[in-house]
């Protein structure tokens, strides 16, 4: 890495920002290099993607506007099949992304080495891919550039999608308006992009997933031609041929994914119900933040914590500085006699997912569009403090659910006892 000048701190002369010890080069693209690195404090492996600002701004002047948005999107994504972004760093000339390190490397190296996968293994990876894609779509995030080098396999054999939300940073949209992949082939690009019509991110991602599935099960690209124009033509017409060893069911399924008409192309919601997709027993995909639903039942309120004056004071909104980081969190606490049964009953009525914790609950709306944490602590014989906190998801949905429904419910059930909102 001759041109990577290392920013160093006095404490560790060889570490990036005194924090990450850079290791070997993992990958190299037009604008970015990816290195293995070790977090000196935790010993944890990370991948550091290094972008050259000048090059990036020359090819993508819109970067300045996009970068904030893209990073905020990445930050919100937390899913077992999506590579996590830990932090961003920068110098005058470079931008660094510290990301989760995925040990096994690119999925497609596996195929180029060992050939096509069995239909069952293809299905397993495809299910994980759809789990990640559906999770992002439920949050209004589209990859738009799903391609082989973005699909990694970890040491447990799980698939991880990288660069979700970062598409504009690594954007391969060239002045000719075409999406080019780093390896110089548009093989994964949906026909409606080629025809320069407006396109929908969700539909485009489904098409790319279809191409990925085809490659996994067939071992070669559905649309390929040494002549770029011929390849465009094939994509545009949806001309591909399935190998004879492919099951009829898979052929049918792929034809639904590689439907050139985005209007009739299968959707993620339909994919997860498709007979080929669910074959062999598949636990329902969760498109929301990971929540353990174990131990949901049981209405008894075990161990409500008792509070002293300092606990009480610590509920002051004046001491909660998370408000300075506007939009990061919202929470509300109120004093009430309300207890657990009402919370659980409410969740049932509203069809929310609930996880019981030691002193409270965690609730989640469908599709993970919001998450509420409810904590209940007892102050004295009469009063309990109920604290609600937005843990993630859409702020609007949270406010709607909390202010207009749950709060009303909790405060109305006990009109004989004093209620107070903090």
């Amino acid at each position, binding site marked *: 890495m001759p041109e990577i000048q290392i920013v160093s701190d006095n404490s560790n002369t060889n570490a990036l920002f005194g924090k990450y010890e850079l290791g070997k080069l993992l990958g190299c693209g037009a604008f970015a290099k990816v290195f293995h690195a070790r977090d000196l404090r935790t010993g944890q492996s990370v991948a550091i993607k290094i972008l050259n600002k000048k090059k990036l701004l020359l090819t993508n002047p819109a970067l300045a506007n996009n970068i904030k948005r893209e990073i*905020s999107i990445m930050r919100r994504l937390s899913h077992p099949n999506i590579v996590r972004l830990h*932090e961003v760093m920068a110098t*005058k000339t470079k931008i660094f992304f510290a990301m989760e390190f995925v040990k096994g490397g690119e999925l497609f190296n596996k195929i180029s080495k060992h050939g096509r996968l069995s239909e069952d293994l293809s299905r397993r990876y495809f299910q994980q891919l759809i789990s990640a894609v559906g999770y992002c779509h439920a949050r209004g995030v589209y990859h738009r550039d799903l391609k082989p080098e973005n699909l990694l396999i970890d040491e447990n054999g799980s698939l991880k999608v990288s660069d979700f939300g970062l598409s504009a940073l690594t954007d391969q949209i060239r002045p000719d308006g075409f999406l080019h992949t780093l390896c110089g082939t548009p093989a994964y690009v949906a026909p409606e992009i080629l025809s320069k019509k407006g396109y929908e991110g969700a539909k485009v991602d489904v098409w790319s997933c279809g191409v990925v599935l085809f490659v996994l099960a067939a071992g070669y690209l559905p649309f390929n031609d040494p002549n770029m124009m011929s390849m465009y033509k094939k994509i545009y017409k949806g001309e591909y041929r399935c190998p004879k060893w492919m099951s009829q069911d898979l052929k049918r399924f792929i034809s639904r994914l590689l439907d050139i008409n985005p209007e009739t192309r299968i959707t993620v919601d339909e994919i997860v119900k498709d007979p080929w997709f669910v074959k062999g027993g598949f636990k329902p995909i969760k498109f929301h933040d990971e929540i353990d639903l174990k131990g949901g039942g049981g209405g008894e309120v075990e161990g409500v914590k008792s509070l002293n004056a*300092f606990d009480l004071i610590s509920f002051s909104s004046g001491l909660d500085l998370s408000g300075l*980081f506007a939009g990061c969190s919202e929470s509300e606490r109120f004093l009430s006699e309300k207890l657990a049964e009402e919370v659980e009953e409410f969740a049932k009525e509203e069809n929310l997912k609930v996880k019981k914790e030691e002193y409270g609950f965690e609730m989640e709306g469908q599709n993970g569009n919001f998450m509420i944490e409810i904590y209940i602590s007892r102050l*004295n014989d009469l009063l309990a403090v109920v604290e609600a906190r937005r843990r993630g998801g859409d702020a609007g949905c949270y406010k709607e659910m909390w202010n207009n429904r749950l709060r009303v419910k909790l405060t109305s059930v006990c009109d004989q006892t004093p209620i107070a909102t903090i």
Partner: protein
Amino acid sequence: MLAFVKRFSLKRTKHPRGYEDPQVLASETPFTVNEIEALHNLFKKLSTSIINDGLIHKEEFLLALFRNSSMQNLFADRVFYMFDRKRNGVIEFGEFVRSLSIFHPHTPEHEKSSFMFKLYDLDGTGFIQRHELKKMVGALLSETDLGLSEESIEAIVEQTMIEVDTNKDGKIDEEEWKELVAKNPSILKNMTLPYLKEVTLAFPSFVLDSEVDD
């Protein structure tokens, strides 16, 4: 041409009163230089919301916390007072970073505990006295629409004094405070802001104009 641009940008980086070099702040806090650049982004937003002078005034602080610049809140007043280390009525960038660093998840608990003790020591006597505790409980209750009787407030305070004031001198000293914190660490929950580990992701625009040398 390039030289011209450079000079221009040098001029542009002239910083307002109270600005401190991120390198210096990074060496004194758990933050990296980039994290301080990210915090500067937040600081710029907070310090220009009402008066565009690069200093956080009380009204701006209250506006950020409560979306209301004339909010009356004893605890917010105390936090502002603690952040305003020079006691000149405004929070400068260096004060902002150094104070926030106490809320960093990696900052040792005893620093958090000591900050909180001083914050609750309203009169600055080195003790949390009974009347201070009572005043704070009252202030908290006035944030609510809950009209608790004088007696119930008194009962809550009394119960806590019995629990915490182990040498029975009618006030809580720092030793007694430390014992309470050891027994009940959740009292310090407000002193840790997990977001501080994510500031580079929350305020990422620094990546474009970072002044860190390669």
